[in-house]
């Protein structure tokens, strides 16, 4: 998975960083120039932008646009994290039932399309008596789908820690929770954060799937405005830029966390 990261190689020296920023600026200008060639209607754009961003509430009084996208993504992120932690524990468990449940769930949700999962949860569950609203169906589908992927990410991070780390901690007769939270977890997090960040950026964009259940998130709003006024380019480009800006925000958070958990690793050679 490619992660675009303008601010990462801090250790590379000033020349490298300047080169990176200059190239980024050039590419941005080129992109903007190409966009300008499209003769966009900026008046219309600025009129609709507050709605797209979600600064105004929908007619039914609920949040919409980017605000709803952020809401759906952050709630799903938290739930996915919880689901993933439990699944990863099951995946590493010696209990056959826990292991089987974890692998069954991960296989099912990684092996079927997210769109199908959303529809089944929204449309099929009511037939067996579970009626869920559009929003909760979307949240559940996103959490379960991404939880399955995230569980594997967490597991691989934990498995990548050398066995000697746990052994050394056990030899010091440390309590179990100290071994888990002070010795293992910080080391696993360092390995988990980059791929988990990529997953969350991808979830941000997949959150547009909840629109099929009548939720007015960013992508849905952009498309419906576009359809009614034929301002397709304006709306699609605006939506794309907002998604991009949000992804960059996510990446900045990820970058900060990465730096924090690189403690003791990033300082090599400082003798």
């Amino acid at each position, binding site marked *: 998975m490619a992660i675009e990261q303008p601010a990462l190689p801090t250790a590379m020296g000033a020349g490298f960083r300047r080169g990176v920023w200059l190239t980024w600026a050039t590419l941005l200008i080129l992109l903007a120039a190409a966009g300008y060639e499209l003769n966009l209607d900026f008046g219309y754009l600025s009129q609709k932008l507050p709605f797209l961003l979600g600064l105004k509430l929908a007619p039914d009084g609920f949040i919409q646009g980017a605000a709803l996208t952020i809401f759906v993504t952050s709630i799903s992120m938290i739930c996915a994290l919880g689901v993933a932690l439990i699944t990863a524990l099951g995946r590493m468990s010696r209990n056959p039932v826990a292991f089987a449940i974890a692998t069954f769930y991960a296989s099912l949700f990684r092996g079927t399309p997210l769109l199908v999962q959303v529809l089944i949860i929204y449309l099929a569950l009511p037939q067996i008596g579970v009626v869920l609203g559009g929003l909760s169906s979307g949240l559940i589908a996103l959490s379960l789908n991404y939880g399955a992927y995230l569980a594997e990410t967490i597991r691989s991070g934990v498995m990548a820690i050398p066995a000697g*780390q746990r052994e*050394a901690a056990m030899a*010091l*007769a440390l309590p179990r929770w100290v071994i888990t939270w*002070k010795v293992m977890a910080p080391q696993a997090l360092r390995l988990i954060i980059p791929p988990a960040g990529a997953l969350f950026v991808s979830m941000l964009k997949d959150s547009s799937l909840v629109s099929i259940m009548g939720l007015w998130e960013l992508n849905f709003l952009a498309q419906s405005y576009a359809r009614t006024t034929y301002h397709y380019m304006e709306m699609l480009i605006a939506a794309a830029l907002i998604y991009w800006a949000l992804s960059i925000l996510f990446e900045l958070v990820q970058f900060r966390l990465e730096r924090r958990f690189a403690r003791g690793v990033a300082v090599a050679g*400082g003798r």
Partner: protein
Amino acid sequence: MPELITLSRVNKWHGSTHVLRDVSLAVTTHERIVICGPSGSGKSTLLRCINGLEPHQSGEIHIDGKLMAGATRDAIRKEVGMVFQSFNLFPHMTVLENLSLAPIWTRRMTREEARATAFHYLERVHLAKHAEKFPNQLSGGEQQRVAIARALCLNPKIMLFDEPTSALDPEMIQEVLDIIIELAESGMTLLCVTHEMGFARRVSNRIIFMDHGEIIEQGSPAQLFERPESPRLEAFLARVMHGDR
């Protein structure tokens, strides 16, 4: 003299491989024991069984009067410090944090007491000035000395060394061996698996030779080096002494 460690007829299998065969051993306080033998002879496994890192399938292990079992394992580990071939320092913690962990969480000291304990043992391995550094800022020899100090911070009655110099560059071996010699001279009971025969002769009062999971021969260094009884020990000595520094 009270016996600190007793193993009686300990057997262990890894799958179908019989890695410890009827191993019996008694170690009294202040003994300094070097365990040697060809690779795969069960030396490391023996050490790992003594602090319960690996379970054994039959026989009994008593440490400081306690029978090794699930319920006593942590209590036993408090009395047994272990130093590994690959150091196994925690890379995300400073030297001081590595050393304070056991005093705080195992020995329930206050942070100040833990800090004092950590510095006490850092002084002993001559590394107090590196307290705030991270492990990967230190050389291999320094890391292993920190690992020794970390094990000592547990204030154990016994120290186990599992090939403590095998992962080191040649020029760093001596600094680690010197620390172990100092420790031995201070009266610490220790068991050390090593291929450093000169060191073995100098530090130990007893050498145990293992092969294929069995204790083949044991005795004083002079006895084993000069008058080996079994042909296997003789062959082993011929091989290691040839390459001895």
